[in-house]
Structures are given as structure tokens and as C-alpha cells.
């Protein structure tokens, strides 16, 4: 599979973009020319210069430095949230459909109840209740999204548990737990990896969207969505304040989407 990934131009392009963003996030302190939160009222809305490569915003903060630090927030929120979602969905999404019968019915009923609330609504009310803060937005996103991931896991488990090798494993003396961990999960993992990696792009957009709405991330934090939000007041006078963070969001989301969809193209022919 790894060989095929490196053969696919799309996957390599996506991977390259992801690596660039990860690199920027890790080495932000060295790459950024200025402190991202340093306010300089004397130099509001300056154009590009050597000191400020992309100019300054309405408070005289270096836009370029803020964009670079923004990668930390986007990845730093999206990736852990996705990992937590992956673990939760693998725990909750495998056992009920494997056991079938009433367990599965109960799971479907509960997940349908959760799915009937749009994620935005859940996040809005949870952030309202928990208060602002990066950890709270992460909790809210996990709480609103787990059911969608678990449902996807369930559908793969349903396909897999009818396979002959599951019965063969049972005959060979495997316990149910062993069948789930040794046989079902390894076989559905490639398909799930695809789903999770395309999910990251959605997660980044979602986080940016929430911070654009002013949810979770407090003002002044150099998050791309928050930058968009504060820039929108200057749409006509200084449109670049919106263009830069917009481009960064687009760039990152494109990277994960390209990579995820290339992975899907690589894996799905084997599945069918």
C-alpha cells in the first residue's frame, strides 16, 4: 500500500502540503519574524515590508507571524480531536453491530437521537454551557461528531462480520473480543484511515468556522478562522486581511483532502 501511495501523484502532492503545514506548525517560533500577539498601535494596516512580510492588521500585529502560529491551532485542535474520535468510534462502533440483535438496535436508536441534532447546534449549546476555551471547543466537537464516526465504523463492521473468516475464527476458538481486535479491526482499518484522513480537512474547516463565529477561541488568538472573523470588518478597506487566512485554510484543507481521496482511490478497488 505504501508503494502505491508514493506512486500516486495526488497522494504525494497532498502529503507534501500536509508536511509543509506540519513543518510550519512545529517550527513556528523560528519561522515567524515577530511575536504573533504583539500589538503595535502605531503601525496599523501597514503594507508589506521587510519587518512585516505581509503587513500588519488593525492592531498593528504582524499578519505573517499570526498566520504561521495559526497552523499550530488548526492542526493542534483538529488532529487530537480526530484521534479521540477515532478511538471512541472504534470502541463504540464495533461491539454493538458485532453482537447484533438488541445491542445493535439500541445503538442505532441512540445514535439516531444524536444524529438528529445538527453538530453546529450541539457545539453552540455546549460551548454556551462550558464557556470559551480551546479544550471546551474540542470537547464540544467530539461530543457532536462521535456518532457520525461510530456509524461509519458500524457500517464497515456489518459488512465484515458476515465474512466466512469470522465464522472460521470462531471455530478456531477465538473469543468475541479477539475476533473484534484481531480480525475485524485490522480488516476495516484501511477503509477507516481514508475516512479519518478526509475527516481532518472537514475538522479544520469546522474549527475555523466555529472560531469565525466566535465560538471557543478567545479574541486575539492567532487562529485562522478567528483572523477571518476579525478581518471581516475591514472587508472593503483592507480585503487582504481576509484573503491571507482564507488561503491558508484552503491550502491546509486541500492537502488533507487530496491525500485522503488519493488513499481512497488506492484502497477502494481492493474492496469491491
Amino acid at each position: 500500500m505504501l508503494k502505491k501511495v508514493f506512486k500516486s501523484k495526488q497522494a504525494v502532492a497532498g502529503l507534501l502540503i500536509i508536511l509543509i503545514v506540519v513543518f510550519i506548525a512545529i517550527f513556528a517560533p523560528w519561522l515567524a519574524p515577530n511575536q504573533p500577539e504583539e500589538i503595535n498601535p502605531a503601525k496599523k494596516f501597514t503594507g508589506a515590508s521587510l519587518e512585516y512580510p505581509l503587513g500588519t492588521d488593525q492592531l498593528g500585529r504582524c499578519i505573517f507571524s499570526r498566520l504561521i502560529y495559526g497552523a499550530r491551532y488548526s492542526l493542534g485542535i483538529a488532529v487530537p480531536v480526530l484521534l479521540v474520535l477515532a478511538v471512541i468510534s472504534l470502541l463504540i462502533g464495533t461491539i454493538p453491530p458485532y453482537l447484533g440483535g438488541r445491542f445493535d438496535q439500541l445503538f442505532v436508536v441512540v445514535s439516531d437521537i444524536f444524529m438528529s441534532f445538527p453538530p453546529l447546534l450541539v457545539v453552540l449549546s455546549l460551548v454556551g454551557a462550558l464557556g470559551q476555551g480551546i479544550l471546551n471547543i474540542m470537547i464540544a466537537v467530539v461530543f457532536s461528531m462521535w456518532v457520525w464516526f461510530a456509524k461509519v465504523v458500524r457500517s464497515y463492521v456489518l459488512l465484515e462480520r458476515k465474512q466466512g473468516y469470522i465464522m472460521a475464527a470462531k471455530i478456531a476458538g477465538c473469543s468475541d473480543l479477539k475476533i473484534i481486535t484481531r480480525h475485524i479491526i485490522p480488516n476495516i482499518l484501511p477503509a477507516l484511515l481514508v475516512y479519518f484522513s478526509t475527516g481532518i480537512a472537514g475538522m479544520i474547516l469546522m474549527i475555523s468556522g466555529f472560531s469565525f463565529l466566535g465560538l471557543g477561541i478567545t479574541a486575539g488568538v492567532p487562529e485562522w478562522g478567528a483572523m477571518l472573523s476579525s478581518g471581516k470588518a475591514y472587508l472593503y478597506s483592507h480585503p487582504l486581511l481576509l484573503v491571507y487566512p482564507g488561503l491558508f485554510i484552503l491550502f491546509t484543507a486541500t492537502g488533507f483532502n487530496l491525500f485522503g481521496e488519493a488513499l481512497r482511490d488506492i484502497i477502494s478497488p481492493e474492496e469491491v
Partner: protein
Amino acid sequence: MLSVKNLAKQYTCRDKKGRKTIVKAVDDVSFILEEKKSYSLVGESGSGKSTLARLLLYIEKPTSGQIKIDQLDLAKMSTRELRNKRADIQMVMQDGQSSLDPSLKIYDSIAEPLRNFLKISKKEEKRRVEALISKVELPLAVLDRLPHQLSGGQQKRVTIARAISINPKFIVFDEAVSGLDVTVRKKILDLLLRLRDESGSSYLFITHDIDVAMYMARNILIMKDGKIVEQLENISSLTEFKHDYSKVLIRSLPPRTPGHRQVKI
């Protein structure tokens, strides 16, 4: 000794109008399988053979009736006891490819029952797996491969190795050779006969092919519509079958030469 008494399995289905209908897949079946003997179960498609096989392995629970292995009732066992009891009765399924986990190497597939039923060291495990693979006449190199890299006959041999790995008292072969071409089928059947003589396990061959049934065992059970219609021990020729359905089965065998055809072309 494996004894089956008044075994029945019903499924409820809904017909086009949504009414419940009961399908009797296995209907009041009783028989006894002695140790160190071979049996063949013959029946047409849909006669309930595979359901019966799954019931014997207790993968599905019967609607009524009982299955006893050495006087122990399977229905009264806990999940764990039942799992350990599977060391006594194993099954080889029809489709070799789908009964092997596509992500596991052949070595791990064969070692799986050993790891589950016996507590043996890695070294001993390796020795046994290698002995098994040569018993089913496959090269050792196969052990590092994945199931899809093997041919149908090789996959079948791997599933056989898996079933015999823990020396079970009974092995059920559910259509074990259908889907293989004639020469491969003959080789596999001969291999099975040889393995049976070496191990002393009791084999139950489930097949739709009366030829295969006669080749593999002297004790024949004939199944139709979920019922055992005829049961013969130690038969030596096709003329011993008495039941009408058995005679239909025999008459349906393809003629040996074109001259024996009933319908002329």
C-alpha cells in the same frame, strides 16, 4: 461420540405481503457419529446441510433438540466451555478464500487454533505449523504469504491444516471440495483420506455429490428438505439405497459414456 437428537432449526422470514412464514431448515434430525468412523451427508442445495453443519459446531443455536459430544450437552455449556469444546469438533468451510482472514499471513492463520486451544511456546508453535503445512503437502514458503496470493487448492489445504492442527475428534467438511477443478479435487480427497487414516479423527463430509460421498465414506446419510431420509452403514454399492429420493440422486449421476445417455442428442 457425537449424538444428535430431534434437532430442529427454524427461521422466520417475511413473504412479499409481510406475513411471517416459518422455514424449517433442519427438521427433527437424529443421528449418531461414532469416533474413528467416516460419514457422508448427501443432499441437494437448500436441503439444510450447511445449517446442520453450523448447528453441529454450535455457531447457531438450534430451535429445539440436543447435541451431545461424549454425553455432554452443548446447550448446557457456558460460552467459555463451548469455546474450549471446539477443540473437539472443527469445520472446513466451502470457500477457502473467504474463510481465511485476508490480512493475516498463512502462518498466523494456521497458528491461530494452536494459540487459542493449547498453551505452547513460540518455538513449539513454529515446529507444529511447519509440520502441518508439510502434512497438507504445501511448501514452507507459503507460510509468509497472504491468502489472496494462493490458488484455490492451496487455500483449501491451508484451511484443512487449520482444522487438523489441534487433532479434533470430529471434523465437518462442508462442501469441502466443491468449486475446485476435478484433478485438484481428487488430490484433496485423497489427502483427506490419508490424513484421516493417520489421525484417527472422525470425518463428516457434507456434499451434494453422491460420487464424492461414496468415495469418502461407507456410512451415508441422505438429507432432503431438512430431514434425514435414509441412513446406511457400511454400504458397498449404489444398489443398497432404498429410499425413493436416494434413487433419484443416483439416477441423476452423469452417465459414464455418451452411450448411456437417457436423452439422445
